[in-house]
């Protein structure tokens, strides 16, 4: 049973915790021992959010050691950069193309500005970078709330968990009436994972 460490990051309100919850359930149903841990900032909205998900035969620490995550899944570009030191040099970064500029970075002179080119900065450090335009995919599917599911689809390409487990958990966990659109979002996320790399994990969906 492969040990897999996944760090999911984003901004409060984006659904990072929901996504890590779903991933953990999927992993447990696939027979893994799972631990998941996160720290949420003080406010309900707008703070930095990160969630550690660890799968394996037996998991001890709920925290992934720095430099050891197999996958970094970022819901926002600058957040990918903030947490990149958690990723192994040969790990994969899946990055939502979305940018969220915090209010304080808008006011000149009040603090540091939003990074110029977060994805570029990440490419300098690692080679396996997958940028997913989850927002526009969600828009095409006419449901802005399914960005997370798109990203989980891409993530699934890097884990050895059968697609059927993913789909059954998604069907059960999403709000009633949105099962179909979520499954479509999940599958279009898989497409993004396949097209960009395809070297590992993709055959789990075969």
């Amino acid at each position, binding site marked *: 049973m492969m040990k897999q460490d996944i760090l999911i990051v984003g901004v409060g309100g984006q659904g990072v915790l929901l996504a890590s919850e779903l991933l953990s359930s999927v992993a447990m149903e696939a027979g893994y021992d799972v631990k998941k841990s996160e720290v949420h900032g*003080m406010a309900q909205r707008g703070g*930095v959010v990160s969630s550690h998900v660890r799968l394996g035969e037996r998991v001890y620490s709920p925290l992934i050691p720095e*430099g050891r995550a197999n996958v970094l899944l970022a819901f926002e570009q*600058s*957040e990918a950069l903030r947490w990149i*030191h958690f990723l192994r040099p040969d790990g994969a970064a899946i990055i939502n193309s979305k940018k969220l500029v*915090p209010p*304080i970075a808008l*006011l000149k002179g009040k603090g540091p500005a939003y*990074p110029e080119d977060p994805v570029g900065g990440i490419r300098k450090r690692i080679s396996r970078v997958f940028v997913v335009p989850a927002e526009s995919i969600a828009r095409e599917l006419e449901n802005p709330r399914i960005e997370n599911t798109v990203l989980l689809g891409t993530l699934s390409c890097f884990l050895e968990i059968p697609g059927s487990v993913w789909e059954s958990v998604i069907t059960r966990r999403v709000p009633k009436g949105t099962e179909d659109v979520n499954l479509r979002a999940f599958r279009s996320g898989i497409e993004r994972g396949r097209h960009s790399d395809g070297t590992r994990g993709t055959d789990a969906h075969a």
Partner: protein
Amino acid sequence: MKILLSGNEAVARGCHESGLHVAAAYPGTPSTEILENLVQYPEIYCEWSPNEKVAFEVAMGASFEGARALTAMKHVGLNVAADPFMSVSLIGAPGGLIVVSADDPGMHSSQNEQDNRTYAKFAGYPCIEPSDSQESKDFIGTALDISAEYDVPVLFRMTTRVCHAKGVVILGEPRKVPVKGFRRDPQKFVVLPNHARVRHVWAMERLKNLRLLAESTSLNRIEKGNEIGVITCGISYQYVKEVFPEASVLKLGMGYPLPINKIRLFASTVKKLFVVEELEPFIEEQIKANSIVCEGKLHWTNLGEFSPETVERGFIDAGVIRKNVMIPVRESVMPRPPVFCPGCPHRGLYYALKKFNAVVATDIGCYTLSVYPPLEVGDTCVEMGASIGVAVGIAKARGSGKGIVATIGDSTFLHSGMTGLLNAVHDGSGITVILLDNRITAMTGGQFEPGTGKTLAGKPAKPVELARICAALGVERIKVVDTYNLKQTQEVIAGEIELDELSVIITNRPCALYPPEIRKRIRRPPFTVELAKCIGCHTCFKVSCPAIGESDQKTGKGLTKSHMDPSLCTGCSVCSQVCPVGAIVSTGKGRAP
């Protein structure tokens, strides 16, 4: 059956499996979810009490009745409940009493990182400490049994990482335990000095028996490995297993009293002994006091939360792991200080208050965030309810209450602000108290408070009215303001802080987030930025709303125009009131804010 549970969820499940009857708490991160999950079990009476002291007393009373009781709080909450916590030591806990202390190493959402294991030693109670969700569930049952059997409250010490991390938990069957009923025994239950002196002897005898229990309990277990011995507890155990799986480990599920004989024996089987514990050298000092050689804080800091890295580096420092640790370089990215939600009623208040050069003693709640830029209002914050007392103290020392303000939320005021206000009336202070009445405990995730009008179980309750409380305490100047109306808010503040006379300003807008049904109720058509009118002055950024950002358009002078995210805007209108050119307008028709 196996399910994924957080430590807090597992504690609730464990209570259900071990026949708990009564639970009382005041919300506090990271403990809040324990009660939120306990309330799903109809056989357990659950309540949000106004503060931790009252919660403790309710649970204590239930245990006097011979029921199994639990109270849960964050570490600093135990300071509030410290009086009954210490005194009940001489009485005991006939039915069983669990005090969950959820400590916050690293201060993720707290004002300090005190190590509450110290309290167990202080009061002479067993300290039981789980290290994951399965143990959180299993140990709570053991703790209840020990509590009832030894007639002693048990400090069930958790930390943020154990409370909030989720893990796989194997469930057990619920069992029923009868309530024994109260038996009159004034020698025991009435701590008059002559009774208490006798009871102190009894409590010392009890501690002796608990020391024997510590030697035999399965909560403390040895995992045989190589010749390096590690004594550890709580979350540190997981990190030790992660980074140094070869070591011999004595895992202490019961951190007080210590099994000194077991430790001595363990020490004799290893070449070198280490103690790995987060925060204070609580175990280390006791081991050393028993003349057993060990190393702990020499290699592991007493500051902050541990991680696999900190534990690994300690072993490297101690020379027992040989490894070149490559520390990955961090990228520097702008901070994201948490901000008020769109539609938050605090935004207008602090924006208005910023105009006055007042000294603002603030308090514990979402509104503490006003200290961050761009609002930067709030000069002191210490602990729950401190704002009023601090403002009075500043005013007394200065000789006038003019321009001295206390800001405090409804839940914090009812928790421990009322007595401060009573003092301000009684001793004639001229400060201005601003009560931010959003009718919820928002910071911890929206728990009901006595003004919400609902109990934890969702039953209707008579909501308390803050204005009537203030009047009853003797406050004569009481004003109510709508913080969605900046002009009115500013005028009222201006009128009050100019006087050296006690006044209370109550803000009356509800939280924009909780309870969830409120979101629909407060939501108005979103505002939008008329790009043709926007002059790119960025005044609207100063209200610090997540719904306002930059558009992709620029003015003739090259200034970026503003943009409103319609999915986030709740239509509160505060930004439209600060716009100097009227460029922010409602998309609804003819609506007054």
